[in-house]
């Protein structure tokens, strides 16, 4: 690892959304930058950092949840105006804290993502895209897919203003004047967009749900260009990207924050597609990251990565070596301390003490209310739970992640279908499976008792009933079983059913009427395919796996019965497909059988205790080969033992 960064904790704010912290641009070079951060309590604060502690510039009063924060400014000036989005409004503040803009977008959805470019403002809810210029709406678009992020830029050659929206359905759409000009399909669901400026060239990057960063070709606007960063080890969803020259070689480094708390820094070469990116730093803070920003914060002029986490922790990873004094205390133990930190600790201790006093009073009040005869209520506000359930293609498992702003004592997992819970390496909680009564609607009852100070837990689950997860893929021809469904259902209804039983389908159907909606899927476990084409009153499902078809039929008929819709099913089974699917399975089974046999053989070979080369030569080639591959085989074996 080339970089050596030290963690320094600064402060805490309320829960934060993705991209809700920015560094204000310095007015002259090497001046310490100020931090603007907004949280879900509705508080926007701007502060600078002095001696490891914060000094506030301004702070707004609590209000509605702030979902996005961005910086902007009139063309040609420093982009030092702060824009925050709360519900359907946008507020603008100067860096001194003066509210200069209150703009109601009149959107019917709360704003989830926002981008400001000069006089242009782009706002997105979960399905609505709006474009305003000087606070006047000049374009809007309704997207069937869920929009996760928006950016805008002027095209280099033509200077035309285009905006890009990332959608959950593995699509990045380019819009101009509120119309989609290009839809770019990408291999994995995008989570974030980022414009990298290097040598006055702009490159659009996107992060994905499986931890990759890809490059979009904006110049010729053809779509996906290549993957810039792919990480085999860590497939957690990317939540934020920043770029900064941390190594001092005038090349920008990419800094990414991930949902599992990992912060990674890469050396990249954007212009050469043959140059692979090199990870130069990685740090895990065990809370999901919501934003990373780089700049100079302390007066000493050292570069620093500032990080906010979901629960509102703000800390820096600084290149500065924290000066430490060493002293022996009266027990002869070595103590390391710095005056700044010591001051901070005293201050914090004092704050905590006064808070504890206040809390004691509140507790008493609450206790007495539980004994009172009046109709008082105990209204603990809902804990905001940050959860995700993501399919991992390589292991055909789902990763359930749960994060809450307070320490998790234990988690109770209940399921009415049979699922396997797999062990996760960085999960130290004690799992206990409980017995259940048949017919109680429970198949799985398990508890996770967490170690102290856990506020994030990952659980890996493999489904057994139904299909083991599906991936979008290209159209497939060949033998197929067909399920034809006819009935009095609307497009929205049939789409909702498909949405319920297959992951990663857009929430809303493509709004084109009278045309078949088409989706192709591939099972990540067996590599069988499934093709759905549907429209109002009719749907056709094709799959070479007959059990997929039967599960879909069962599901749809269940759903239809719930809604009292009469359905006609006709199924055409191609006998060849049964053989085909079995043939798909045979090599897998054979492979595992061979692996097992090899491992048993290896155990026996181990007994011979051969480590000298001349002894090796007396053995058959097969055995020599086995011994050579031993460590590899054992690794795959232990990986697959859970399957």
């Amino acid at each position, binding site marked *: 690892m080339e970089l050596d960064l030290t963690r320094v904790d600064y402060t805490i704010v309320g829960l934060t959304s993705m991209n809700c912290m920015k560094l204000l641009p310095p007015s002259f070079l090497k001046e310490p930058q100020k931090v603007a951060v907004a949280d879900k309590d509705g508080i926007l604060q701007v502060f600078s950092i002095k001696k490891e502690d914060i000094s506030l510039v301004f702070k707004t009063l609590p209000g509605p949840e702030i979902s996005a924060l961005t910086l902007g400014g009139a063309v040609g000036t420093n982009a030092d105006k702060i824009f925050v989005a709360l519900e359907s409004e946008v507020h603008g503040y100067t860096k001194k804290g003066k509210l200069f803009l209150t703009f109601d977008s009149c959107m019917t959805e709360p704003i989830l993502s926002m981008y400001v470019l000069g006089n242009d403002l782009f706002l997105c809810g979960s399905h609505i895209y709006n474009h305003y210029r000087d606070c006047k709406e000049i374009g809007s678009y309704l997207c069937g897919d869920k929009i996760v992020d928006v950016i805008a830029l002027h095209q280099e050659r033509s200077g035309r203003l285009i905006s890009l929206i990332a959608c959950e359905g593995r699509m990045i759409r380019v819009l101009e004047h509120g119309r989609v000009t290009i839809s770019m399909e990408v291999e994995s669901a995008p989570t974030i967009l980022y414009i990298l400026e290097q040598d006055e060239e702009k490159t659009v990057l996107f992060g994905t749900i499986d931890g990759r960063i890809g490059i979009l070709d904006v110049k010729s606007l053809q779509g996906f260009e290549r993957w810039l960063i792919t990480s085999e080890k860590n497939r957690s969803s990317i939540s934020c990207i920043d770029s900064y020259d941390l190594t001092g070689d005038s090349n920008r480094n990419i800094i990414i924050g991930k949902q599992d708390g990992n912060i990674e820094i890469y050396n990249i070469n954007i212009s050469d597609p043959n140059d692979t990116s090199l990870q130069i730093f990685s740090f895990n803070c065990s809370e999901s990251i919501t934003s990373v920003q780089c700049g100079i914060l302390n007066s000493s002029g050292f570069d620093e990565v500032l990080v906010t986490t979901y629960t509102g922790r703000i800390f820096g990873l600084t290149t500065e070596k924290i000066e430490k004094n060493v002293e022996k205390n009266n027990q002869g133990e*070595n103590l390391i301390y710095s005056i700044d930190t010591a001051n*901070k600790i005293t201050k914090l201790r004092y704050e*905590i003490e006064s808070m504890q006093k206040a809390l004691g009073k509140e507790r008493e009040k609450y206790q007495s209310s539980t004994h009172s005869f009046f109709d008082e*209520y*105990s*209204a603990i506000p809902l804990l905001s739970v940050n959860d995700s359930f993501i399919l991992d293609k390589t292991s055909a498992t789902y990763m359930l992640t749960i994060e809450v702003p307070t320490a998790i004592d234990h988690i109770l997992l209940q399921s009415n279908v049979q699922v396997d819970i797999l062990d996760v390496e960085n999960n130290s909680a004690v799992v206990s499976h409980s017995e259940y009564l048949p017919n109680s609607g429970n198949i799985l009852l398990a508890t996770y008792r967490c170690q102290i100070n856990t506020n994030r837990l990952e659980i890996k689950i493999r489904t057994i009933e139904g299909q083991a997860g599906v991936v979008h893929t290209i159209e497939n021809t060949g033998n197929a079983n067909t399920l034809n469904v006819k009935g009095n259902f609307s497009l929205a209804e049939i789409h909702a059913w498909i949405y319920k039983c297959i992951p990663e389908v857009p929430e809303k159907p493509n709004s084109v009427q009278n045309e078949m909606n088409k989706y192709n899927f591939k099972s990540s476990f067996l590599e069988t395919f499934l093709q759905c084409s549907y429209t109002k009153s009719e749907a056709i499902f094709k799959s070479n796996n007959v059990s997929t078809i039967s599960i879909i039929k069962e599901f749809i008929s269940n759903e239809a019965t719930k809604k009292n819709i009469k359905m006609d099913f006709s199924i055409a089974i191609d006998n060849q497909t049964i053989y085909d699917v079995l043939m798909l399975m045979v090599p897998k089974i054979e492979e595992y059988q061979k692996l097992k046999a090899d491992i048993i053989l290896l155990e026996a070979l*181990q007994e011979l205790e051969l480590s000298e080369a001349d002894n090796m030569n007396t053995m058959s080639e097969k055995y020599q080969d086995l011994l050579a591959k031993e460590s590899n085989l054992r690794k795959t074996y232990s990986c697959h033992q859970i399957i």
Partner: protein
Amino acid sequence: MDKSIRPVFTLELNYKIVPGLVTVGKYDGTHPCLSAATTTDKVVIHSPHRRNISVHGRINYSEFNREIATLNINQAITTLTTGLFIPDEDKDILVIGTSSHILAYHVHDNRDVFYKECPDGVKAVTIGNFGDVKFPLLLVGGNSAIHGYNHEGNEIFWTAIGDSITSMILMDYNKDSLDELIVSSEDFKIRIFKWDTIIFENVETEVVTHLLCLPENRFAYAVSNGTIGVYEQETRLWRVKSKHFAISMHAYDLMGQATSQLITGWSNGKLDCRSIKSGEVFFKDNMNSGVAGIFEGDYRSIGKNDVIAVSKEGEVKGYTTSRSLSITTPGGSEQDIVRELLAQKQSLQMELKHYENNTKYNSSLNNHLDSFESQGVIPASTRLQIGIATNDDRSKKRFVEIYVSTNNSTIIRAVSIFAEGIFEGETHVVHPSDSQVSSNLTIPLSLPKDNPVDIHIKAFVGYPNSEQYHVFEITRQLPRFSMYALTIPDKKPESYVDFRINERLQRICMWINQNFLLSNDVEVDGGPSLELNMKCLRDESTFVMIFEVIGRVQFCTDNMGLAADLVQSLASFLNLEILESKAHFPLEEKSLKELIEKLSEIQEARLRLGTDVADRLGQVRSLIIRAEDARLNDIEKLPQHYKDLDNLNKELISGYNVRLANYNEGLETIKKINTIVQRASRLRVGQNSSQMLSNCRTAIKNNNIEGLIKIVRTG
């Protein structure tokens, strides 16, 4: 965490090591040698400081790695220990235990100190000074008893445990500067013996697999469910549970704190260094595979011991006391303190916010009422009520029932009960289906053992549409004899134990009320005696307790183990140091008699089978010679000889199976006998108990069945 601790050396043994079977011995009196059992029933001895000594005999030095020697044992190795055993000699003796034999081997002289058959099996071994004996004893824990041998192989000590022994250590438990024996066994118990008297006994939630003596009269233990902890006399200082299992523990000063820390090696390859007093983790490292053992020795010949960890794959890592500027304030560096404080502040802030919201909500109550059910709002006066009772409904299966209910219209969505040792996992969850949720819930529990159990109940309270629920926590202790309920007088069981105590009936009533789950407290009714008819909920067997005013107590039950538990529980409640009793258990006596007869039959059969094997081996030899002879002279007869050999081989194998069955049967019989003897001893307390045990041993040795039964009856 201090990053500066790195291994000072690493090496590879290239042998697969059995977890737990690793030790170190100074076989020549000065140089430590790593000794470990391999998966192929060998013992490897790694002696990095070996001078050119060539010895022959049991030990084979490897041809291409002169540091490594192997000992072929050819029987599954169960224990491996080293220690000073021969009086007035400074060389460690290697003691190897297999499922049926124990070998004390002098590595340096390459000779057997003794080789002895242990029909009871060898499960745990320790060497040291015990009791008044002037020379070191080798204590061997088997399937049901502990034997103590001197270096000549003579039995000096014997006591019955009643279940398989998992670990033993010798240490000064009660600060009397004499070593006591601490024994853990598969019945979840840790017992402390002062010679043959149990001075303390406690029950863990699972099988205790390892014990380790620590400085300052403390000891550490590891449980098969992943718990480790430390005891200081009777008080547990701390314990932690992990999803992995502790394989090996060692006390060593890794952090340079001038006192030792507890180093634990885990099944997943993790090593951690914890404070003995608090269990706080100072340091962690990982091996590439599961840890097989941890020990200390001066492996680099620098005059100071290193702590050395060995993994299953034969990886060896050595660590030494950290001499760098270690951070010794608890919680690590100041930055960590800042982080800790910030976290504390955060949680305080949140709690405050919650209370504020609560106040706000209550002051603007009228605006909200329509939606509060789904908002996680419940009346502040909501209480969770709990009742625990034995369920004696004739129609149903009998259980201890826990009844929880709320005092208003709120419902209980789910209940999770955390208790150790009574469920398959550590928790039991009740989650009624959507249509069945209501404001009360009954949870049947079945307790497998007569031990007091702490149960922690978490109930999720809210409304049917709630997204988030309020969690109510309740902790209760179930008394030791929860699975017994009062019943109508029936025929009294024939067997009983009878003794006298000098105690008022009121005190005895207190004991009953504390240890049984009765709907009403038992009170003295003024009669000459107090008689309680009880029924076991597990198998519906009955038992009767009679307490007379004059001090005579009788427990009538066919279950000797229950009688023993009752006697022990009552005696410890009344602080009785000694108790003498008369036992009448005709069924147990009969089976004891049968078992001893069976045992001698088995032993006879074993002798017979043994001579058989010797015969056959002779035949094998002659057949091989004849076959080889035929290969040169009379090729035609060759197949015939090999066919005969094959048949003989098959016979040998079937003979082996017969012997194996015989051996297992023998083991089982010994265990049963020892269990009865041990239970009988628990019908008495203190001196009487240990006296009875040693009398029993003499009687068994002399095959005196009548005498044995008499001892069981009268003590």
